């Protein structure tokens, strides 16, 4: 029996929805897309990716995983997939009308099928939700911000962008959980590539005595919260305990339904 398609509404975090609405209202981004700028960006993006990265053929394991994920999220067309050497284990989305997913070679070389599946699901859920388009447009704003002659305007714009970038992480974490149906795997995905493999192997996700004390400590302390809130103005990093606890909360909410 076929699984029902996972809709964007199923996994979009309320925070993402709120921030996206704010950004669109503020910048009128949706009207930019109509101007034909998207085609120009796609054109260059396709050139850069095809001239610089290895295009994943349909027989490749990554392509097969992507096909399965695309079916789960009801993506009519598979985005273009490339493999590249990257320091991070995170997949990168780009393109406007023609989305591309760039898979780091380090992730492929690890041969951890569970994690490859999680990361691909997260990326394709992002494509379905249009994260690649916003990332593109936001990148332009980020670059243009240096030329804005209004004091603190660029800092304010960047803060908004960072908030959005954090919020899409929470949405993608939810999508991974929904796609795999495995909370432990989805939690491991959050820490994968950040926590050393050796340490990660010793975790028992979602139970006391593992990552939970750190999560609790993070959420309880006023000083930590203040420092975290202040630091989040300067960077787009979504704190691991934050992502971890939000996903558990989401999973608990769903099991309670």
């Amino acid at each position, binding site marked *: 029996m076929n699984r029902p398609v996972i809709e964007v509404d199923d996994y979009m975090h309320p925070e993402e929805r709120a921030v996206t609405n704010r950004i669109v209202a503020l910048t009128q981004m949706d009207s930019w897309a109509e101007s034909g700028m998207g085609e*120009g*960006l796609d*054109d*260059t*993006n*396709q*050139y*850069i990716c*095809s*001239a*610089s*990265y*290895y*295009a994943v*053929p349909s027989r*490749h394991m990554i392509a097969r995983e992507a096909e399965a994920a695309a079916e789960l999220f009801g993506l009519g067309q598979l985005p273009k997939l490339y*493999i*590249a*050497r*990257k*320091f991070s284990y995170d997949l990168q989305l780009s393109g406007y009308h023609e989305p591309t997913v760039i898979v*780091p*070679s*380090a992730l492929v070389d690890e041969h951890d099928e569970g994690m490859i599946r999680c990361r691909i699901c997260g990326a394709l859920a992002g494509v379905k939700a249009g994260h690649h388009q916003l990332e593109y447009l936001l*990148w*332009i704003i980020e*670059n*243009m911000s*240096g*030329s*804005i*002659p209004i004091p603190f305007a660029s800092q304010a714009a960047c803060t908004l962008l960072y908030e959005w970038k954090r919020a899409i992480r929470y949405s993608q974490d939810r999508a991974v959980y929904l796609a795999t149906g495995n909370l432990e795997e989805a939690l491991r995905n959050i820490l994968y590539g950040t926590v050393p493999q050796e340490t990660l192997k010793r975790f028992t996700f979602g139970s006391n005595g593992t990552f939970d004390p750190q999560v609790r400590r993070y959420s309880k302390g006023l000083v930590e919260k203040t420092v975290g809130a202040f630091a989040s103005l300067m960077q787009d990093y979504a704190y691991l305990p934050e992502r971890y606890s939000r996903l558990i909360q989401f999973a608990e909410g769903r099991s309670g339904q």
Partner: protein
Amino acid sequence: MKIDFGKLFDAEMVHPLEYESAKACQSVAVYDWLAKQAAQIKKNLTDLPEAAARWFPVNQFTSPRLHGLYMLALKRLNCAEEYPLFLKNGYDLTAKALGSRSEGHMIVMNDACAEELNDGELLALLGQQIGHIRGDHIQQLELLDLLESSAQSIPMMGTIIGKKLWSYFADWLVASQYTADRAAVFAAQSVYAVESLLLRQIGLDPASPEAKALEQQPVKQAKGKSGVFFIKSWHEMPAFGNVERIQEVRAWVRSGEMKKDHPQVYYQCRVEENDPAFSPEDESVLRLHASAMEGDAKAAVKLAELYVQGKEALPVCTAAAACLFQYAACQGDPLAMRYLIGFMQHGIENMENDERRIEQLFRAAYSRKLATSRPNPYGPLPVNESLRALVGNLEQKYGVSSPDVEDLQRAKDAFWIPQDDDVYSCSVCTNSDGWLFGLAASSTGLYGRTDEKSLPFMIKWEEFEARDLYSRETDDGWWIFSGPARLIQKPKDMHGTMAELLILLKKACPSS
């Protein structure tokens, strides 16, 4: 031993696209003025004095392997200047050439390269950077950097100006990489090494099937390269355009132009990549190249003869023939030695008509049973009777063991020593291409080779007796000389070395 690829001239190195795109850039009225201003500003902001304090310098003491490879790359690209080389902390498998024409250049390499790349890939990477310097790309890159940072500070318009600027230079940036890759082929003397480096930078294993598939990967050309996006890519992507570069360098080594100007490179690269043959003639030529590359001196001579005559689909190419004859002669092939004599006597490929070297080659060839009806024009040489006893004494004194038979034969072949000579002592080293250098003392004289740029030499004992023996500092450190001839590097501790043997021999000379 690796067969020398020959010289790559600047005109051959520059990719045609670079000529066109550079011309387009320079056609802008203010270009010359901007370039001058940028050079002036950069002159005062040069990184060179700071570099030594910030990064790890590579030299023969700090990193002998990397330094040795760097020297080899410089030599193969015929580069007389040794630009300072530094290592810095970095994950990407890249290096960067910096500096200016007036203040000199330097190369900074990420330390991941030294750890993860093999010798061929490192030579390719260094070759790319030397290519950028030789191709005078650094001026333009520095100008771009300066213009970009200046443009960024213009309120409102900065980004737009920057966008136009980078899109204007986009074609040149891509083409300059192609030029650098061509230099890398000659520095690594292998197209496989260059491809392998570019593949590793993308994150692919060069041995994987994916690597092979890249040759066929379609590259979608952008209509107008968007400047804003280009800045992002150029700065953030260490492997920018690598797929296109692999396809371009593969096409270049297989081009008709390469087959005509550097046929040996063309065939060697095809052998290296296991390319299929087009015809039975092509197959036989490919097979000969493969055998020669594996060290078959007879195949090298056969091939060189074909290059001289321009037979079996090969063009007439005396440069390739000279490289192959030298390669075979240094493996002791008498026919190759005889051909080299001919090249020297007729000044082919700028070979010096040196009477002494011709005599040395004649003796070496005849003693190796050169099949000819003509008698050897040179008679036997007098033998130094005291040498055997002296070497015996030294061995006893320092417990130095005699070189084994195989090493002795290799030295005899590499230094063109007559086969029937007794070699009593030798001090040799091998470079990364397998060529032998050093000095050997035989019954008829001293034979050796000092570096890649020179051919083997000979000093008869009577000449040794008549000349002064002394040490002198040169660009390469301290050397021991006999008259005008450089013999061997002077070691710090001379005990039990060839240098001490030379001094003792000199003392034993009746004239001393």
